[in-house]
Every structure is written in structure tokens, then in C-alpha cells.
């Protein structure tokens, strides 16, 4: 039995439908990320779980109990906001204690819990500070402690790292994941940053235009994108135009070169145009490797990206990028050079719209 279930959720603002047929079952203790571009409806779904928006249709349940009749302050769901939302008139300790005071807990219990939470986020020494005396990263950690203090059944994180600088973002996302695993709390995390979602989630929901395009583990989402949108949104991807040659033998042609796919070409006929996807890191240059899983092309550019060098080549009108790990002795291919790109049959994916 799932812990948090969203069934056929719909949400419209006036004539605009922002969430369509959204279904999701989240297990207890799971860390699920909603990933998608701005305006895809991910925050709206989160706000419906929190109770700040009312679904136009569908049901949200926690352990089979509907949340429909519960106000946000009755749901026992903790939330961390992008803008921290700490109470400026309260110290760190008072902010963390707020939910416990509202719940009418005894003072001794509140003090102990505040101490425990501040220890968890390693900010016990800043208990007496006001929010304006702290950095953004510290404020967001306090916001996390405040949300966790009343022991909520679900934790919602609405782009909590977006307002922070890159270094703090990485360290804080690791800290969030560590705390989540330590407490075993069911967590829904909203982000538009694919790296964030891939690095800390048990499962990812990739959302597009109000729908869940794909739900899966980070590896599933990255390695086996279900739609063209997911393929394009998560990671860098080469989209290659190909023509079906022999469906039974999984043979297609890219320009004038033939390749064999691992996936079956369901219902395709010879001459049909299809789209294939290849990750830049999947290919490597190999001398004289013509065959079923290699493509010969002309290098158009090489870009130094630090740890990798990304080279772009032209294959029968399609532009394909591939990455090489940087090393002191590496000489990237020069523009105009003819190279052979080798990959395995399973790296080349058929992309469906």
C-alpha cells in the first residue's frame, strides 16, 4: 500500500488547465522529485498536497485518508519554501520552536526538540540569531529544521536551493538527502535543476505541460527516456534523424550509413523516418571501426568544458556531439578531420513523441 497517493489530479485556473490526469503513488520514506521547466505544474501539484491549492478534480490521500477536508494547518505536512520564509521577528530557536508551540507542546519537550533539530542542521551555535544575520544557506537549513520539528508525515520542498549559489546548492542538497534518509521521512522535492533531481532522488517525475511524462528512478529517466521531451530535458542528448531500412533486423540508416538497433522497430515500415537519441558520453573515437555500431563523420568543432572536451561532428546532415575525458596528453580532433564514433547498440535509443 502506498503512503501518499495522488489519483487523477486536475487543476485549472480559469480556462487554463495547469495539471492534467496526474497519478502518482509514493512509498513511505521515499524521496521523490518533481522535475520540469517553469510553468509545467510541478509546484501546483506540491501546493495541492500542502493544501494551498484545491484540486479541480481527483483525490490526494495519505495512508488511504483523504486530505480533501483538511486545511493546510491540519495536514501535518512540513514545507520548505524557495524564499526561506523564516519569521523575521523570531530568532533561529524561536523559528524552529514555532510549530511545536502552536501544537501546545510542553516547554521542556520544545526545548529538547529545538536542540535536536539545530544539532541535525549543525547550527546549534546560532540559536539566538535573527534570520537577517544569517546567510541564505544557513536560513534554508533553519527553514528545514523548522519544517521537520513538528514531525510531519510528509516533507515538501519547493525549489529550496534555487536562491543559493552553486557551491552551497551542492552541499545543501547532500545534507537534505542525508537528513531525509536519517529521519526516513517521505519527501517531495520540486526542482527545475536536473542535476539536483538526479543526484538525490529515489524516483523522479518529469513533468511537461501539466502531465507526468515519465516516472522512474534517476537511472531510468537518464538512460531510458520515455518521450522526446524527457530525452531533451534530462541531460544533453543528440537527436538523430534516421530512416528505417529493415524493421525485422532492427536496421536503420543515418545519412548513407547503416546501423543496427537493439530495440525492436514496432510497426515501422521500410522508409519510415524515426528519431534516435545518443548521449554524448556514450560514444568514443575508435580508429577504423566501421560497422553496425559506428558512424563516420566530419568534425565541425571541439569545445573545452573542463573535465571533458565536447566535439561536434556532422554525420549525413545530423550534428552529433560526443565527450572525451580531458587528460594532459589528449589532443582533441581538429575541425575538418574525419573521425569514427563508436558506441554500443543499446546506447542508440528510439525516441517516441
Amino acid at each position, binding site marked *: 500500500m502506498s503512503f501518499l497517493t495522488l489519483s487523477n489530479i486536475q487543476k485549472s485556473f480559469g480556462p487554463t488547465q495547469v495539471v492534467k490526469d496526474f497519478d502518482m503513488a509514493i512509498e513511505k520514506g521515499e524521496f521523490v522529485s518533481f522535475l520540469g521547466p517553469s510553468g509545467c505544474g510541478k509546484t501546483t501539484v506540491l501546493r495541492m498536497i500542502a493544501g494551498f491549492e484545491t484540486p479541480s478534480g481527483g483525490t490526494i490521500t495519505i495512508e488511504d485518508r483523504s486530505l480533501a477536508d483538511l486545511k493546510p494547518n491540519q495536514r501535518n505536512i512540513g514545507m520548505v519554501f524557495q524564499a526561506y520564509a523564516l519569521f523575521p521577528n523570531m530568532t533561529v530557536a524561536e523559528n524552529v520552536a514555532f510549530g511545536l508551540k502552536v501544537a501546545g507542546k510542553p516547554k521542556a519537550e520544545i526545548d529538547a526538540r529545538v536542540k535536536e533539530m539545530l544539532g541535525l542542521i549543525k547550527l546549534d551555535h546560532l540559536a539566538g540569531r535573527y534570520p*537577517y544575520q544569517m546567510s541564505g544557506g544557513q536560513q534554508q537549513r533553519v527553514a528545514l529544521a523548522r519544517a521537520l520539528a513538528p514531525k510531519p508525515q510528509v516533507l515538501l520542498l519547493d525549489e529550496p536551493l534555487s536562491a543559493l549559489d552553486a557551491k552551497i546548492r551542492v552541499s545543501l542538497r547532500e545534507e537534505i538527502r542525508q537528513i531525509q534518509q536519517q529521519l526516513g521521512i517521505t519527501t517531495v522535492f520540486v526542482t527545475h535543476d536536473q542535476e539536483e533531481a538526479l543526484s538525490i532522488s529515489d524516483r523522479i517525475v518529469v513533468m511537461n505541460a501539466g502531465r507526468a511524462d515519465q516516472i522512474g528512478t534517476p537511472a531510468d529517466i537518464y538512460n531510458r527516456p520515455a518521450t522526446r521531451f524527457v530525452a531533451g530535458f534530462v541531460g544533453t542528448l543528440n537527436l538523430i534523424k534516421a530512416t528505417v531500412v529493415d524493421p525485422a533486423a532492427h536496421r536503420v540508416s543515418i545519412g548513407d550509413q547503416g546501423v543496427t538497433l537493439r530495440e525492436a522497430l514496432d510497426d515501422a515500415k521500410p522508409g519510415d523516418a524515426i528519431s534516435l537519441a545518443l548521449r554524448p558520453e556514450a560514444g568514443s573515437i575508435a580508429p577504423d571501426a566501421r560497422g553496425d555500431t559506428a558512424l563516420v563523420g566530419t568534425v565541425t568543432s571541439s569545445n573545452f568544458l573542463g573535465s571533458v572536451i565536447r566535439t561536434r561532428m556532422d554525420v549525413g546532415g545530423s550534428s552529433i556531439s560526443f565527450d572525451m575525458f580531458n587528460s594532459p596528453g589528449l589532443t582533441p580532433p581538429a575541425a575538418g578531420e574525419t573521425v569514427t564514433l563508436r558506441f554500443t547498440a543499446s546506447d542508440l535509443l528510439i525516441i517516441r513523441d
Partner: protein
Amino acid sequence: MKSSRLFAWIALAIGATYFLVPLIGTFEFSLRMRRGEYSFDAYQSVFSDMQFRATFGYSMLMGLLTIVFGMLLVVPTAYWVRLRLPQIRPLIEFLTLLPLVIPAIVIVFGYLRLYNSSSFLPLTNSTNGTNLLLMFSYMTLSLPYMYRAVDTAMRSIDVATLTEAAESLGAKWPTILFRCIFPNVMSGVLSGAFITFAIVMGEFTMAALLNRPAFGPYLQFVGANKAYEPSALAIIAFAITWLSMGLLQIVSRFQKTAPVKA
């Protein structure tokens, strides 16, 4: 650069002279009650006047009540307008500006027509009723300043997100309003409160036409019948206003909130 600084100093000097010379003149005149020498006799006369004490105390009380009830009206209104009804904000701003446009005498005649002894709500039938009506009049007069001060303070905090954060922690409306929002708009509330206090202490029309023993009518009475005391009273009134403004500065300096984010 140098000449522009010079012009700035000249402008400042002219402005200061325009305000300070009459004030110094008034102060100097208030000290001349005793023939041939300066003294504080006029101030002594004012402070020992029972009517001064009674009217000053009455207006102080009315000022405090106006502030309390004004805040109870304005803070929740500004909060709800910001949170749930931003589309009616222009209307509320227009309504709160009306007391600046409509003369006080028109407002008070309106009140007298509406709340006289033969009306459906005869507030002027009793002293307490009239006091209540006077307090409501003061609330109306201070509305443009009070609403703007509170609304500006609310603009500096993210009212919607703070409300949602408090709600997600289990708080109900009174807790959200009085523990999460109210303390964070305190600078605005206090600004409005001090301006309200200054308005109430000097207001004449409403109190005179409602026949209440306020400080404004007393100022007018003394001004019409005595020589040196009106000058002393003018200086006292200035001192009260300045004290209010000084307190306002101190309070806004010691606010515990972060500087407003752009």
C-alpha cells in the same frame, strides 16, 4: 560639484530659516510674560491650568484609543487586501485617501446627521456615545497615514509566503496575524500610530462640533483669550510632535527585520 554643494547649503539655510525663525520668535515671545526679563511663567500658567490637564489627558486617551482601534481596523484590512484581494487595492487606497479630500467639517456634519439623537443609531445621545463617535472621526482622519504606513511595511515582507509557512506549521489565523505578521509590520504600525497621535492632539473641528473637551478646542480658547500662553502651548504642541517623530525614528532603527530585498 563645489557650486552645487554651495547651492544645496543655501537652499538648506533658507528652508531652516523659514521654519526656525517663526519658531524662535514664538518661543522668545512665550518667555516674555514677566516684564523686563525672560521666564517660564507662561508655561507654568499653562501647566497649572486644570483645563489644560483635563483636555490634554482627554486627547491623550482619545489618541491611544484611536491608535488601538485604528490598528485593529487597518492591519487586518491591509493584510487581507495583500493576501486575498489584491485586485481591490486601488479601491481601498482611494477610500483611505478620501479624508484628505473631504474637509473635516463636512465629515462631522455627516456624522451629526447620521448619528444624532433622532437617528437609528443615536450616538450623540450620551457622553460615551459622543466620545465613541469622536474616536471614529479621528480614525477616519488618520486613515490615509495609518493605511499607507502599514501597507508599506507589509510590502517589505512576503506576506503570502510567511502566511503559508505558518499555516504549514499548524498555525490558525489569529496566531498568523498576531505572531507572524503583526510584529513584522510594527515599524509601519508605529509610524501610523505616532502620526495619528499628533493628528488627534491638534485636531479642532471634530472635537469642537461634537462639543468634547479636547486639546484642540482648548488651544483655540486660550489663543483667543490670553497673550503669552498660546505661544507656550504652540511650543508644547511642537515638542509633542517632535517627540513622536523622534520615537518613530528610534523604533524604525531598532527594527529586528532584515533590510528590504529588492
